[in-house]
């Protein structure tokens, strides 16, 4: 503890550097007043709010995460055990983004956010008669018999010619479910409001009283497109709790898997965005490149989407020299293809006409909301864990940050193109300097309760994990936070003022996860 460097702007909060990732720690707060005060300090010191979640038995608590340049700070507020629905101070007065998170905690645990004026349910949809996570694991949760009559009070816009368009939860395509309510005049969207929670699967409840390996399988299935990122964040959290540091070879292979996931998703997104702007060519070309990559994944890692490849303590597959040579060859081919397609996108007038000035999220708005990820970087927010302080191997071959400033669909397309290129050169460096590796070591046992955090730059943005272990490797509680929960509110801001017909294009340029949001 002696090597901590207290930061003058953050009294009482300091972090220790870590080899396997960014510095991160939990800070228990004694009273609601200090919790509120520390949250204000972290917010005003340039901290980005990254999420808020609850935990129940044996010690009810609220955890709130902030990401600063120094690292990840998580405030923990224990709540009284005896009170049936304890209250905690709401942060939504100065962090508007906390609104949905606090409503989720209220829906699931019954903890009352004091000072939150919004009384509407969020992921719970009023489906249960009692908050499901206020009950012990495995106990049946009584249904709310009036649930069918849930009439969510959307905010309405009135005036001559204003009408409403409801969309979802079932959408017209191969898409996850969610509801969008548009207030429209003529072709123009005046307001967009989201109602999510349709894919709520009770993930936080399922983590309770499981072993670490089962938890890893669940962590891999938070959001299918981010399976490497969520698995890696979970593994980091377990490893921090057990005070274990994976070998350099494991860290390099994990980083490689994470980049393959990023490239695959960015390829898919670029094709789908082009297609939504009317260029079918894009869907075919990027679909082809993505499929080539997935087939290489299956050939060398045994899985197209890399499910269950990252496990606490290690990875599932190692690479021999032949595989490395093959992946290096793939890397070069893909780079040439991407450069050619980027040129075609840039030169295509019709495409640029649809992309530019569509779905603008102004940099100052992105800054105020504290956004990161592709969406944040397309609105000039210079945050990327890999570039900032990724630890090893990112320190050895630091990937450059991809940034754009216009905040429109064009900017989000540009960031993806730049990130694929950067990702390819980073992957090349990893492959060329892959340390001697054994794929997995057994993680140590714990005789006492332990907690840990993990954070990873997934393809959308920062994926966060928290675990609390009871003695001997039992997961007492865990939470995994996909960045989508922070980015959905930004979509509500980027869409108004655009045409209804541009919504699919803007939505695709965000490409947010429903499952990762609803948990």
């Amino acid at each position, binding site marked *: 503890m002696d090597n901590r460097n207290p930061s003058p702007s953050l009294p009482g909060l300091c972090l220790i550097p870590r080899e396997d990732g960014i510095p991160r720690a939990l800070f228990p707060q004694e009273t609601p007043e200090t919790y509120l005060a520390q949250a204000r300090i972290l917010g005003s010191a340039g901290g980005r709010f990254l999420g808020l979640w609850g935990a129940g038995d044996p010690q009810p608590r609220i955890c709130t995460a902030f990401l600063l340049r120094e690292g990840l700070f998580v405030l923990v507020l224990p709540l009284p055990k005896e009170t049936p629905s304890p209250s905690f101070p709401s942060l939504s007065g100065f962090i508007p983004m906390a609104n949905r998170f606090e409503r989720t905690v209220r829906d699931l645990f019954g903890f009352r956010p004091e000072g939150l004026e919004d009384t509407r349910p969020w992921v719970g*949809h009023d*489906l*249960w008669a009692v908050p*499901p996570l206020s009950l012990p694991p*495995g106990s*049946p*949760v009584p*249904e709310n018999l009036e649930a*069918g009559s849930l009439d969510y009070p959307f905010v309405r816009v009135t005036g001559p010619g204003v009408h409403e368009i409801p969309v979802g*939860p*079932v959408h*017209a*395509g*191969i*898409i*996850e*479910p969610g509801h969008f309510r548009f207030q429209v005049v003529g072709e123009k969207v005046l307001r967009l409001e989201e109602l999510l*929670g*349709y*894919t*709520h*699967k*009770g*993930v936080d*409840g*399922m983590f309770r009283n499981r072993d670490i390996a089962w938890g890893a*399988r*669940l962590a891999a*299935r*938070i*959001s*299918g*497109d981010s*399976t490497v990122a969520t698995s890696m964040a979970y593994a980091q959290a377990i490893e921090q709790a057990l005070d274990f540091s994976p070998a350099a070879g494991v860290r390099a292979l994990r980083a490689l898997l994470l980049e393959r996931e990023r490239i695959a998703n960015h390829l*898919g997104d670029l094709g789908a965005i082009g297609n939504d702007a009317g260029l079918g*060519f894009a*869907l*075919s*070309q990027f*679909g*082809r490149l*993505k*499929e080539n990559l*997935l087939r290489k994944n299956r050939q060398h890692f045994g899985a*197209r*989407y890399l*499910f269950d490849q990252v496990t606490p303590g290690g990875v599932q597959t190692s690479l021999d020299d032949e595989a490395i040579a093959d992946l290096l060859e793939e890397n070069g081919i893909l780079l040439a293809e991407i450069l*050619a*397609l980027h*040129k*075609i996108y840039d*030169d*295509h007038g019709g495409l640029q006409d649809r992309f530019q000035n569509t779905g603008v999220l102004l940099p100052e708005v992105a800054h105020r909301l504290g956004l990161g990820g592709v969406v944040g970087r397309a609105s000039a927010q210079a945050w990327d864990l890999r570039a900032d302080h990724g630890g090893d191997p990112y320190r050895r071959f630091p990937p450059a940050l991809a940034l754009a400033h216009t905040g429109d669909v064009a900017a989000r397309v540009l960031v993806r193109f730049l990130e694929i290129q950067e990702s390819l050169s980073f992957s090349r460096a990893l492959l060329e300097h892959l340390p001697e590796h054994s794929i997995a070591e057994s993680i140590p046992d714990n005789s006492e309760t332990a907690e840990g955090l993990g954070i990873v730059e997934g393809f959308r943005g920062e994926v966060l994990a928290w675990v609390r272990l009871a003695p001997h490797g039992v997961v007492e509680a865990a939470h995994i936070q996909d960045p989508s929960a922070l980015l959905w509110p930004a979509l509500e801001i980027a869409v108004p003022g655009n045409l209804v017909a541009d919504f699919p294009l803007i939505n695709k340029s965000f490409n947010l*996860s*429903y*499952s990762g949001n609803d948990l």
Partner: protein
Amino acid sequence: MWKLLLKIFRTGILTEKRDQPLSQTHPPGFGKSLAIRHVDAGSCNGCELELWALENPYYSLSSGGVKFVASPRHADLLLVTGPVTRAMKEALLRTRDAVPGPSRVLAVGDCACNGGIFRESYAVHGGVDAVIPVDHHLPGCPPSPDDLLEAIHQAFGTSPPSSE
């Protein structure tokens, strides 16, 4: 523009030959087209990624006359993914009711088949069977595009389903 055309020319046709092209084995009642309505009943999005892959040039599902449609009223097959969350039950029932007969239901993925890893959660029904009758099951987490093609093929069978 010429770069774009050149790229198309150089890429060529990538669609893989299959033993039984879908278009040749459509059951008589369906003519040369099969329409699928997909409902995500709370999946993690893994199955959706592989459904998307069916549209890429290698599998080129639509060249076999099979397409995903926007309305259940246009569909011959209801393809359901996910463990059926409590919040999606009503939407799934209403979508099923909007599909005209004759039609079939295909449950895709471990979650849709039996709830998968989410089976014991308070928030799910534990598979499509628990909510609507299912004609065909395709397990997998997620199933590969080849398995999906095969399952879609089988779901239609070689004769039209009896009118309900």
